[in-house]
């Protein structure tokens, strides 16, 4: 085996790949070869490093130099200076990674300091397309331990003792689910992995599948042993082509090594996994809908009970867990339930991965111990709000969750605390909003999503969410009437209590939570026909302040509809009837003379 003196790790997650990290990789390989370094320096394409904002990211070891926003043109300099002459290219280092003249290691950078990586432990560390790298990081050790040293009952006991709760959103105790399915009677049982990550703004499951697919395969095999199943299916979104491809590669390599298939580790245990593709239906994240979809039907949920543990795929007992839940399992088996419980809080042990996005400086993926406060995530890890704007609210839980206002920012993140606030953990989307975001419009955005994604099976969800959306559209377009807000509330509570599945039951949350904390914004829209955030177009108008306007004519030139007129060197005016409120004039005015009201 070749020993390399340096490793160049290039992020191959979706975000960085979208900014051409594949071209950067080719360039590195080319230049390294040109300099004759290809026996000394190894280029590795890894999964997501998490700090997507700074992408494309390249990390060079052994120094751990963290290069951000790398361009293809920069590669030659890094190879020439850093890899050949040993001088780190400071100009390209991530800004927080440089302190005076020394470089900080990655774990010292603000973004990573408060994180604790369990589910993401191998993301950005190993090459996900090489099973040997996973094995080198204790991969498949947990499966080996389970098959040779433990009974299925002992495995379930460890998972139960760990207190692990489902990371897909609901937070149901994972160990109990395993126990129910193990106890269910059936000649055939199945293990499913829910990788239908549909919550807009959440991408942790994708990153795990892209960065560390074997951890999921290993956990599914462990689950198979524990509940007595020998077939698994991973239901993954077709919108995640890189994840699908890496899963296929991982399954193939695991079969070749005898880690999937017949007689694993010579113990007589058989287990195999197949990938099934989703086709763009959010509701398929609901477990009974997901099962229907694998069976080749419309992805519609059904009544529970019977739960999938008793009657699941093709009517057989079925265990279904989410990607991030599985990714925790091998570590729990290896390090024990006590270790896992020592992280996080009593009721929510362990960590949770969040996809941090929206109006925040460090967009990306973060894994934090449960109990970390929203403030720590947003300010210490996320680096605060860009452009000096004021933090207004944070949305968690996607279309099923709600908005948490600025004054509750010291809330520790746990399953139960978030639910108490009228939001929920959800799969882990965390969208930060500043003063320019209109809360009514955000509620409208999520309702628009649920209306589109409602499967149509039960009337409260099918009809109710549509009626709610209509009222919200009315309000945001300035046609709200007294009584609309009360009507919204009534509809919301009915839909919540009468819908068939989780989608409908949680669909009103974005409205209810914004009504709870930002009712005055709704009232301003309805009663004063005013959008306090200045975001709802129909309620806005642009004006030129006479005293500030120098008559430079820039605005008149940039206006696409010719709504601005005036003599050169004298104040201009906007014709409100012609104005389409595109905001082009406001952006271009050199004297900040234009305001929107």
């Amino acid at each position: 085996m070749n020993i390399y003196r340096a490793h160049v790790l290039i992020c191959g997650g979706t975000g960085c790949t979208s900014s051409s990290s594949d071209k950067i990789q080719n360039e590195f390989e080319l230049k390294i070869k040109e300099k004759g370094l290809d026996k000394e320096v190894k280029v590795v394409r890894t999964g997501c490093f998490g700090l997507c904002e700074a992408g494309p990211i390249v990390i060079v070891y052994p120094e751990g130099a963290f290069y951000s926003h790398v361009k293809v043109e920069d590669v030659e300099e890094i190879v020439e200076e850093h890899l050949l002459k040993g001088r780190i290219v400071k100009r390209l280092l991530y800004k927080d990674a440089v302190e005076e003249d020394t470089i900080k290691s990655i774990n010292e950078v603000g973004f990573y300091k408060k994180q604790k990586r369990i589910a993401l432990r191998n993301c950005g560390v190993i090459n996900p397309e090489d099973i040997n790298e996973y094995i080198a990081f204790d991969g498949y050790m947990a499966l080996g331990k389970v098959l040779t040293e433990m009974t299925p009952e002992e495995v379930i006991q460890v998972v139960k003792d760990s207190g692990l709760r489902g990371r897909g959103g609901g937070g149901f105790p994972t160990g109990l689910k395993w126990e129910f399915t193990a106890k269910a009677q059936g000649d055939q049982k199945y293990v499913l992995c829910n990788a239908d990550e549909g919550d807009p703004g959440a991408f942790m499951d994708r990153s795990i599948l892209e960065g560390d697919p074997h951890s999921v395969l290993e956990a599914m095999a462990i689950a198979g042993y524990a509940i007595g199943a020998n077939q698994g299916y991973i239901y993954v979104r077709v919108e995640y082509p890189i994840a699908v491809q890496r899963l296929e590669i991982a399954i193939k390599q695991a079969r070749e090594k005898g880690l999937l298939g017949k007689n694993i580790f010579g113990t007589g245990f058989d287990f195999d996994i197949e990938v099934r593709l989703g086709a763009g239906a959010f509701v398929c994240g609901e477990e009974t809908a997901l099962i229907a979809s694998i069976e080749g039907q419309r992805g519609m949920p059904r009544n529970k009970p019977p739960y999938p543990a008793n009657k699941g795929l093709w009517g057989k007992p079925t265990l279904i867990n989410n990607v991030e839940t599985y990714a925790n399992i091998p570590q729990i088996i290896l390090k024990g339930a006590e270790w896992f419980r020592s992280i996080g809080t009593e009721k929510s042990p362990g960590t949770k991965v969040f996809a941090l996005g929206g109006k925040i400086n460090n967009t990306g993926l973060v894994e934090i111990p449960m109990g970390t406060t929203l403030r720590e995530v947003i300010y210490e890890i996320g680096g605060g709000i860009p452009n000096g704007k004021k933090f207004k609210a944070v949305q968690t839980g996607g279309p099923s969750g709600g908005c948490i206002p600025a004054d509750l920012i010291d809330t520790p993140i746990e399953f139960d605390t978030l639910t108490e606030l009228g939001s929920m953990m959800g799969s882990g989307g965390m969208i930060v909003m500043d003063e320019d975001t209109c809360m009514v419009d955000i509620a409208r955005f999520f309702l628009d999503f649920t209306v589109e994604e409602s499967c149509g099976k039960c009337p409260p969800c099918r009809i109710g969410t549509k009626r709610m959306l209509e009222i919200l559209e009315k309000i945001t377009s300035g046609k709200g009437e007294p009584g609309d807000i009360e009507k919204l509330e009534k509809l919301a509570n009915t839909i919540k209590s009468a819908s068939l599945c989780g989608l409908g039951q949680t669909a009103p949350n974005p409205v209810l939570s914004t009504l709870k904390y930002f009712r005055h914004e709704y009232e301003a829209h309805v009663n004063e026909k005013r959008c306090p955030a200045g975001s709802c177009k129909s309620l806005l108008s642009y004006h030129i302040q006479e005293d500030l306007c120098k008559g430079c004519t820039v605005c008149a030139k940039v206006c696409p509809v010719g709504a601005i007129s005036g003599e050169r060197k004298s104040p201009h005016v906007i014709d409100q009837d012609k104005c389409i409120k595109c905001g082009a004039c406001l952006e271009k005015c050199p004297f900040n003379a234009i305001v929107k009201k």
Partner: protein
Amino acid sequence: MEFKFNWEENKDKIEELKKVIEENKGKKGALMPVLHEAQRIFGYLPIEVQRMISEGLNIPLAEIYGVATFYSQFSLIPKGKYQIGVCLGTACYVKGAQAIIDKIKEELKLEVGGTTKDRKFSLQATRCIGACGLAPVMTINEDVYGRLKADEIPAILKKYME
């Protein structure tokens, strides 16, 4: 129907589909994989193709139509040569994806979910593609455009017009 299915031109593709159907016949839950393959082969799922699948897998056409129309990834009309997808995930929306869509609609005289008559462009508002760090994001086939502003749209589209 605005777009007519051409049997002659699609001869090879039909053969390919028949093979796929043959391979999946009798398998449990075969419909979704077959529809995915059919969509890959033809680019969309015209009623003629659905009928072939129905006969091949012995599943009622009504059921196939039901499944094909349930999932947003399956399309009953052909997609354009250049498929534009504008991400409407939360992060992109908060960062102004709607203005991007509006600009494209205006430039191409195209509605969301539609295809231009010359089959050159089609426009989709996609669910989160997970490139939230680059919000707002647009994809045209394999090309990804991130951190977009609406006034950059005409120049980008022009590259594909030739």
